[in-house]
């Protein structure tokens, strides 16, 4: 965690810094931290740290514990199930909606994101791949025309990353992840709404199943049911 320069909205800067530190694992899941210590490390007063933590708590990334401080929350298998269930409920119909509204410039953006993913995979740069992956999904949700939806799904993705979990290099290679997005883009280019929606469904479902199997060694009834429904 680096020192934060005092300018702009301090609370937002502190919030971004803490969020990045949680996602990178620098602030360790399951560990307790005092507001005082965090403020000292960041070189700021306690007020903006407390305010930033309250926001992270409302996103479910940390929890305040009476008299002790703030605990970085560990993502459980239930968390992952909930998050992916919501992503399926939201991203699949939103993808169908986005096809009808997609402009040429939006297609260019999706293509750029996919190219970015492929290059990052080539370079073995997991972080860059994740950034492009996120932009790919966010671009589709923005085209669907609902900013609240895009912001909400983005915060769901934070929750998954909080655990530092990713299928990259474990259950599938970086190339596999990049390639999974290609069919979605193809269906967008063909203006095939149902095809794009089912490609998105396959991709999100596959990620959920791999991740839960990898992290908890189990399958889940929830996603088996989703798969059964899809086929």
């Amino acid at each position, binding site marked *: 965690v680096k020192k934060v320069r005092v300018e702009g909205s301090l609370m937002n800067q502190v919030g971004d810094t803490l969020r990045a530190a949680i996602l990178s694992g620098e602030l360790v899941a399951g560990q307790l931290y005092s507001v005082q210590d965090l403020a000292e490390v960041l070189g700021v007063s306690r007020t903006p740290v407390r305010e930033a933590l309250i926001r992270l708590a409302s996103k479910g990334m940390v929890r305040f514990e*009476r008299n002790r401080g703030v605990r970085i929350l560990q993502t459980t298998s239930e968390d992952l199930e909930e998050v992916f269930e919501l992503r399926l409920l*939201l991203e699949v119909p939103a993808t169908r909606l986005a096809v009808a509204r997609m402009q040429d410039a939006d297609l260019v953006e999706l293509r750029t994101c996919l190219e970015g993913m492929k290059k990052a995979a080539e370079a073995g740069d997991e972080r860059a791949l994740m950034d492009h992956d996120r932009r790919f999904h966010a671009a589709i949700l923005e085209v669907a025309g609902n900013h609240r939806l895009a912001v909400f799904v983005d915060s*769901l993705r934070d929750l998954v990353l909080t655990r530092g979990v990713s299928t990259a290099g474990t259950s599938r290679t970086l190339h596999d992840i990049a390639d999974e997005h290609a069919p979605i883009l193809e269906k967008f280019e063909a203006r095939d709404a149902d095809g794009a929606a089912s490609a998105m469904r396959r991709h999100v479902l596959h990620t959920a199943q791999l991740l839960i199997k990898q992290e908890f060694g189990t399958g889940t009834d929830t996603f088996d049911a989703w798969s059964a429904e899809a086929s």
Partner: protein
Amino acid sequence: MKPMVARINVTDEVLTTLREAIISGELEPGSLHSVYKLAERLNVSRTPVREAVLRLADVGMVALERNRGVRIKGITVRDIEDVFQLRLLLEVPATAFAARCGQSELAAALAEIMEAMRMAAADDDELLFMKHDREFHRAIVANFGNVRLTSVIETLRDVSQAHGVSTVHRGRDLPSMAEEHATILEAINRGDAPVAAAHMEEYLAHTAGLLVRQVAAVTKEPASTEWLDRVRRCG
């Protein structure tokens, strides 16, 4: 750390009070307030008020204006569109699920809420009716068993309920709203998932359409509901 935890509980209380004041219209849309004055009015220190206000800003109920204070935000057609698009995407499948996999406890809870809704409608008690309306939808959503889903629906309802936006007496009356819910409930009880989902979709779309017209009349935005047809085709 003790003082901070104590303050956080106060923050929750302040948050509830401010949210209710915005929803009831006691804090008028467009009006500007200082954190200092709000703290004085609530008889608490400024810190919990500042913290509560930050959270209200997150859901778009207020905007923070540098060096000036807190602006109570009016609702726009765009807000209604965003909120109801999300509610349609989430509540319609949750309703189908309730019809397919609802337990007897859900049926009993919904029957009780339905009865209370009809009584509130008969008494023409709008506030009480809206409370039961919210419980009805919450019970169906909670049955889905996804805590995050339940909490996002609560947040969305706060947004649309803010500023007292309601369709009551502007296009439909309480007894007809109660009956719209009764058709949803009957289909759930029959285990008829497609019909239950269709009634829920109809109800939400009807509500959204009325709200859009009502808000548009105030904000002078176009009252387009073309997005509703689009969303309904994609569900």
